[in-house]
């Protein structure tokens, strides 16, 4: 790390489209300001552990880090991050401007949405509902409003498209992402919420085994019947593969995939895929939010230089560039930018779903809880446990975690 002169910054990024964007931004910044920015790029799986270890050990190896929003509570509660407020103040600004999507900014505060600001949102991902509009027209299925519509559509397609896939194979009505762990949970949460279930009650006690919770799970299993065999091991890759190969008609997925569907090298369903808001049930559908944030570690060596870059990188024109590089923005102005809308027709939907998206529960124990919850969802998916058993045992285990976390 550079000392004092702040002519050098080190930046830990996620390897993938988000990191690449920031990397290129950094090069532009270097060209403009002459501040050399060194990039440390890590696989998504490992970025977290790297940051955990480095920040925990206070090596000050990084001046800036990218982090996925679920990690934020842990980092902030453990005091790994720098409060940005003073830095804003230093530059005579009250804080981030209003252009940021509130749900995104809320993620960057600890406690959630009310507390101090420890990061700025860089990539505005939130789940979308993908579906094959060609098939919907073909079988004139009604527009998707509720999960029951989804189920009905799935059933129809399963029956009618036994050989409808490009290879002559079967088109499955729905493809679920249910690999143990994060995957299963991420795909389940929208249903879970829509059915009116909640992870915790006001007192922070787990309530996953509520009647709503169990029903949500039952519904998920029902939906699973129309998913390709082995969906219990699917992760984003398999899901996307099915959609791209045209062997599945509907799924929850992340915007990062949208571009692929129009890429001949990857897609057999060019022009046939459409995107809509998360379906609802008892409640209106809400997507799970998954933003990439940028923060300054507590032990960063060049806070000010780092903060300057942070501000620069999250300006709307920089974010537009990032958007052009394939990352959904976190600013309304960018979402509504004409040029971008032309290039990314889904932006309207994305903005909507981002704005009323929901974050995963903001607890430092989330990883642990999500993992456990995922295990039992998976057990339910493989039929090892009945929905009731699964939920009640999940509840018990989650309670344990919270207990030992105290």
């Amino acid at each position, binding site marked *: 790390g550079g000392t004092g002169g702040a002519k050098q910054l080190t930046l830990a990024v996620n390897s993938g489209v988000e990191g690449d964007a920031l990397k290129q931004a950094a090069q532009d910044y270097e060209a403009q300001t002459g501040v050399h920015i060194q990039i440390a790029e890590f696989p998504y799986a490992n970025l977290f552990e790297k940051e*955990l270890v480095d920040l925990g050990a206070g090596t000050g190896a990084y001046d800036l880090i990218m982090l996925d929003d679920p990690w934020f509570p842990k980092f902030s509660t453990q005091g790994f991050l720098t409060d940005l407020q003073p830095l804003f103040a230093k530059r005579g600004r009250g804080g981030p401007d209003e252009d940021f999507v509130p749900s995104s900014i809320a993620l960057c505060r600890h406690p959630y949405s009310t507390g101090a600001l420890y990061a700025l949102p860089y990539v505005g991902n939130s789940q979308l509902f993908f579906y094959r509009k060609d098939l919907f027209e073909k079988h004139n299925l009604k527009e998707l409003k509720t999960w029951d519509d989804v189920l009905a559509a799935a059933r129809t397609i399963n029956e009618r498209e036994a050989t409808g896939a490009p290879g002559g194979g079967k088109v499955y009505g729905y493809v679920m992402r249910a690999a143990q762990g994060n995957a299963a949970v991420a795909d389940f949460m929208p249903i879970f919420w829509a059915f009116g279930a909640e992870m915790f009650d006001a007192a922070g006690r787990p309530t996953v085994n509520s009647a709503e919770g169990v029903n949500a799970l039952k519904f998920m299993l029902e939906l699973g019947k129309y998913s390709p*065999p*082995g*969906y219990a*091991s*699917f992760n984003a890759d398999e899901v996307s593969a099915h959609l791209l190969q045209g062997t599945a008609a509907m799924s929850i997925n992340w915007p990062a995939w949208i571009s692929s569907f129009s890429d001949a090298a990857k897609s057999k369903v060019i022009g046939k895929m459409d995107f809509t808001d998360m379906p609802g049930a008892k409640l209106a559908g809400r997507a799970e939010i998954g933003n990439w944030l940028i923060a300054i570690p507590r032990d960063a060596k060049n806070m000010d230089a780092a903060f300057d870059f942070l501000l620069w990188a999250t300006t709307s024109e920089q974010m537009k560039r990032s958007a052009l590089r394939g990352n959904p923005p976190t600013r309304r102005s960018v979402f509504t930018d004409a040029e971008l809308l032309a290039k990314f027709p889904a932006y309207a939907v994305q903005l909507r779903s981002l704005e009323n998206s929901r974050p995963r529960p903001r607890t430092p124990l989330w*990883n642990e809880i999500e993992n456990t919850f*995922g295990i039992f969802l*998976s057990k339910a998916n493989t039929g090892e446990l009945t929905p009731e058993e699964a939920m009640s045992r999940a509840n018990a285990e989650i309670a344990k975690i919270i207990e*030992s976390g105290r």
Partner: protein
Amino acid sequence: MRRRQILAAEYERALPYLLVAPTLLVLIALSIYPLIYAVRVSFQTGVGTGARWTLQNFTRLASDSFFLSALAHTLVYAVVALTFEFLLGLGLALLLNREMRGRSLFRATLLVPLMLPPVVVGVVWRLMFNPNFGAINGTLKGFGLNTEALVWTASPKLALASVIAVDVWQWTPFVFLVLLAGLQAIPQEPYEAALIDGSSPWQTFRHITLPLLKPAILIALLLRTMDLLRVFDQIFILTEGGPGFATETISLYIYRAAFRFGNFGYAAAMSFVLLLLTNIISLVYIRLLQRQETA
């Protein structure tokens, strides 16, 4: 003259220590501190400043059903994989321990799985196991089999078998490599004597080859066991321990505790259990296989 020789004698006496010294230094330097660290954190909760001294990490082990089933999976995994890897490796080593055309090419080729980065292995197999696009079911379908039920890593019944299969595929070459080198070191005379004494191929194998191969066998078993009990990469990529915890092994669980949940104390505590386990098994092997040293 005399002094030179006395020095020589001293040097001769010191030599063995000089020879092991570097190794010991490196190992001490890189193993003592981590050990101390692990011991310390295993008796603490929380990290850094907020750390408290406690036994809870160990007490928790007993009641942690996840830990116990992970332990069970690990043992099953190790035993089954080791059995196959050893038998196959031994078989291959014996097959290729003879003069034949193309031998050296065969040998090198058989090592290929060993040479692939575990991540890649995991990825490739994950793709092959895919029930719908995967090469395996695809080929089976090609033979007209119904593969509806064969969802490999997605089925709680097949998942463990599947990851074991991958391990066998990747690590049998190692056993093969070690045992082959061992076979190569066995002199020819005893075999000729055995022929003369009229021992059948099987008897020769049983009474001559196996005993003389003991050192190599010991090494192969020791190292494979140690690594099997710590198996991580392939499973992590293939199943992340799923479905429904069916393939979760200790290392995965330790990994989560340490790197996902930031609970180093608990991770360390579990590692000590693993260490103990490994130690016991190793000692058993050594008891059984160590050739008594006749100085």
